[in-house]
Structures are given as structure tokens and as C-alpha cells.
């Protein structure tokens, strides 16, 4: 070979000669294209698995150290690209905490609404992909239709289908266009109707149950030891959810339950996600009911751009506009760790700033990376065919895992 292989696995030397060592490799539809599982098989059962990630490492930290605070926002979209808005809001809250800015009530409720709305899209994508990998093509197509309506709807609000960059430090890019909330209600009813069909197709489907019930089981201690959070941890029975434990944004005013599984296997992870979609739909409706009026962005000259009319007429607005665009926001020195409940688990941003216009260090605590760390314990002892549903139920998103 003219170039050395990118990874070295301990399995090629320590596997016993009778077993087969195969790559469930980086370019595999079931591993979402970026995870390599080197598995030692004895016949059909996986004896030992060695999970490699890093095939989608795009240098997020190095890039964010060389961009100003506003220019980092598009990079945060590409972390968990199934729910880009959640990453935006965590990053924005980290910077706002350092700046000591409290966002306007309308922005607070709108961010919560969009967080839950994007959680619906993320869970739908995860369940659709993992069910399609098990052969449920119809469920995949139903869910892709629902998700596509959500994409078009968010495109109407933010201008992009997938990578929104809708947040600004201290507020949002723009307010809701008229007719957006009416269309939102239509999509929610549409989603509920389609998700009933998915429940009908999958919940008591003999094949689905045989392939996912009691497969990749784990206890709560095992999950905590391996650092799992989010639906993967809740499927083992522990109701640990940041929206209840450390409520942020407008979650204290919303009433919702935290769905919890029984014995932490693939079926429970699927069911916890579907129940969370129902909870999110009801939360979005509550947010729409209590959406207050008022501005979306806080009018603090350090962060928010003045309106265009004032920029063309007054010299101060022009100067603040120019300074904000050219030099970016000056964030006082300090460090902060902000964690929200992203669809996959606890997404934490550790931001260190040295007072200049660029973040000194921005580390992302990504749930998918930790799930990949512990996933080999869920693969060993089960069959090769169970690697696909187990991996699908962990919902590993490449951008968030490798950053």
C-alpha cells in the first residue's frame, strides 16, 4: 500500500486465530459514515469490538480560536447537524453569561420553542435512520416527509434548511415572520398523525421487538460509569434530565414529564425518544401560548447591531455597527461551562476568554463522543446483526462526536 492505514487496532495481534476480525468500517451506511468498528467475531457473535472515531474531525476548536465570537456561530451549527439550533443556543448562552447579558423574555421563550422543535427533528432523524437500517423503509419515508416539512418551515424562519446560524449573541437574527406560528400548528398536527402510524408500524411489530428487545441491555451504574447521558441513560430507568435538574431558558414554566425506560435496551431507547417527541410537541404548544411580545434582541450596544435606519442616519450607530462588524464583540476575561440538554444528552460548552475578540479556548463536551467510548460494552456478546440497531439507537452524530 502506498500510504499507511490511519488507525492501528489492538485486535489484529491479540485476536485468537479461529475468530474472524472484520471492519464494520468508516464508509458504512449503518455507522453514519464516520465510525469504524473493528470486531472480532466467533461465528456470528461479536467477541470483542474496538470502536474508532475521528474520521470527521474538522478541527472545531482550532477554527473557533481563530474566529471572532460571531463568526464561530456557523461552526456550532455543524456540531450536531440534526439539531443545529440547540448547539447555537448553548454557545450563545455561554458567551452571554461571560458578558453578563440577560436575554429578553420573548427571546427566552422563542429559544425554548426552537430547542424543542429541533429536538423533534433530531429524534425523528435518529429513529428513521435506525429503523431504515433494520429494513423499515416505509417508516423512514414517513418520517423523512415530516422532517422535510420541519426543514422547509425553519427555512422560512432562518433562511437555511439545516444549518440555521439563527442565534446572535444577546438575541436572535430576526423575529418570527407572520403566519409562521399558524404553519407551526399545522406541522405539529401533521407530525402527530404520522407518528401514530410509526407507532402502529413499530411498537408491536414482531420483527422489531425480536431485534431490539433485550439487545444491548445495560444498568444505570454501567451507563453512569461510561458517562452516558440523555435518552441512552434515561432508557435505563434514571430520570436525569437537565431540563428538570438545572432548568435553563424558559423550562421552569413548562410542565412536561421525563420519559424513562425499563431495562435499557434498544427498544427502550427507541421508545424514550418517541415519548420525548410527544413531550416536545406539547412543550412547543405551551411555548406558543405563552410567547410574550417585545424585541427579540437585547439592545445592548456591546453586542447587538443597531437598526439599519439609525445606521444610515446617526454617526454613533454607524460607528457601533462598524466596530461590531470589524472587531467583533469584546468579551471580558473569564471561563464558564454551560450545559444544555441536547437531544443526544448533555452538550456542554467550556469557554475561556482572555478579553480579546476571539475565544481563547472553546471545548465542546459532546455526548456522542462519550457514547462511542462506551459503546463497545454494548456490542460484545451480541450478534453481528445487532451492531446495526445498537449503533442506530445510540444516535451518534459525526460532527458532534469528532468535532
Amino acid at each position: 500500500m502506498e500510504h499507511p492505514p490511519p488507525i492501528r487496532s489492538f485486535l489484529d495481534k491479540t485476536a485468537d486465530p479461529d475468530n474472524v476480525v472484520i471492519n464494520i468500517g468508516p464508509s458504512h451506511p449503518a455507522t453514519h459514515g464516520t465510525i469504524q468498528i473493528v470486531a472480532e467475531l466467533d461465528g456470528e457473535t461479536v467477541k470483542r469490538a474496538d470502536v474508532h472515531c475521528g474520521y470527521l474531525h474538522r478541527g472545531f476548536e482550532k477554527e473557533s480560536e481563530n474566529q471572532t465570537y460571531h463568526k464561530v456561530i456557523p461552526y456550532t451549527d455543524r456540531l450536531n447537524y440534526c439539531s443545529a439550533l440547540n448547539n447555537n443556543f448553548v454557545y450563545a448562552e455561554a458567551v452571554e453569561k461571560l458578558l453578563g447579558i440577560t436575554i429578553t423574555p420573548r427571546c427566552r421563550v422563542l429559544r425554548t420553542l426552537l430547542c424543542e422543535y429541533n429536538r423533534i427533528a433530531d429524534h425523528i432523524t435518529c429513529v428513521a435512520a435506525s429503523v431504515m437500517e433494520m429494513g423499515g423503509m416505509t417508516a423512514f419515508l414517513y418520517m423523512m416527509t415530516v422532517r422535510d416539512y420541519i426543514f422547509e418551515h425553519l427555512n422560512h424562519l432562518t433562511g437555511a434548511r439545516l444549518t440555521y446560524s439563527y442565534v446572535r449573541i444577546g438575541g436572535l437574527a430576526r423575529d418570527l415572520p407572520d403566519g409562521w406560528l399558524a404553519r407551526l400548528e399545522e406541522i405539529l398536527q401533521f407530525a402527530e398523525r404520522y407518528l401514530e402510524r410509526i407507532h402502529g408500524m413499530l411498537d408491536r411489530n414482531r420483527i422489531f421487538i425480536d431485534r431490539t428487545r433485550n439487545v444491548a441491555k445495560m444498568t444505570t451504574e454501567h451507563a453512569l460509569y461510561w458517562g452516558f447521558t440523555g435518552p441512552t441513560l434515561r432508557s435505563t430507568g434514571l430520570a436525569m434530565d437537565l431540563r428538570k435538574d438545572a432548568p435553563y431558558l424558559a423550562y421552569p414554566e413548562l410542565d412536561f414529564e421525563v420519559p424513562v425506560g425499563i431495562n435499557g435496551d434498544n427498544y427502550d431507547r427507541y421508545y424514550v425518544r418517541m415519548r420525548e417527541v410527544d413531550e416536545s410537541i406539547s412543550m412547543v404548544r405551551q411555548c406558543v401560548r405563552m410567547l410574550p411580545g417585545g424585541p427579540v434582541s437585547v439592545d445592548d450596544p456591546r453586542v447587538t447591531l443597531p437598526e439599519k435606519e439609525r445606521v444610515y442616519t446617526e454617526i454613533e450607530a454607524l460607528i457601533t455597527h462598524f466596530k461590531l462588524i470589524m472587531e467583533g464583540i469584546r468579551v471580558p476575561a473569564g471561563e464558564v461551562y454551560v450545559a444544555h440538554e441536547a437531544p443526544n444528552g448533555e452538550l456542554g460548552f467550556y469557554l475561556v476568554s482572555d478579553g480579546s475578540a476571539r475565544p481563547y479556548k472553546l471545548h465542546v463536551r459532546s455526548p456522542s463522543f462519550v457514547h462511542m467510548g462506551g459503546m463497545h460494552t454494548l456490542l460484545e456478546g451480541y450478534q453481528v446483526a445487532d451492531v446495526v440497531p445498537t449503533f442506530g439507537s445510540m444516535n451518534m452524530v459525526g460532527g458532534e462526536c469528532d468535532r
Partner: protein
Amino acid sequence: MNPYAVFLVFLLASIGVVGLTLALNALLGPRVKPSATKLEPFECGAEPIQQRNVRKLPIKYYPVAIFFLLFDIETVLLFIWAGSSGHRELAAISLGSFLFFMGTLVLAFVYLWKEGGLEWQ
């Protein structure tokens, strides 16, 4: 049209179609000498870790292969039976013999099922 002519036409048609596609492929397809990487087994883009493909296979695969063969050939015979069920004088005999044949196979299947031959572990 004696029946053998029909069979001859059928034979010529099948050989013709296969031959045509192969010829066109050889004629029109790009002739590129396969490189070393192309001949290696495809393992999702990564380098195959073990090159030994001749090795002892676990015994569990053998009974599954036999059961598949058993019930697959049975369906082939199903077609013959279906074809012959139309003739008046043949129908009774073919139905009787077929039911006897299917009965023994179903017996074998039930025994196999109870014995746990279909469970993998």
C-alpha cells in the same frame, strides 16, 4: 409447432440474451487493467485486517444451509405440481402425491422446530 421446436426457441432466446449482454459489455465497456487495490476485498474502505479467507467455519452454519436447501428445493417442486394440476386425469394423482410429499416435509419441519434447530445460540 412440435413441442421440441418451442423448447429450442426458448433455449436460443435465453442464450441469445445472455450472449448479447456479454458481447456488448466486452465491446463497449472501458477496458481498464484492474489495479492491486481493486482486487482486494472491500471492507468498508478500510484495509482488511486479516487476509486469511480459508479458515475453519463454526459448525452452526452447516445445518442452517441444509435446512435452507431442503425447503428451497421443495418450492421448486411446488412449481411443477402447480403446472400439472390442470389436466383432468393427472389432477387427482398429482394432488395425492404432492400432499404426501408436503406432509413428510412439514413433519420434518415441526420436528426441527421443536428440536430447536432454528435457534441460533
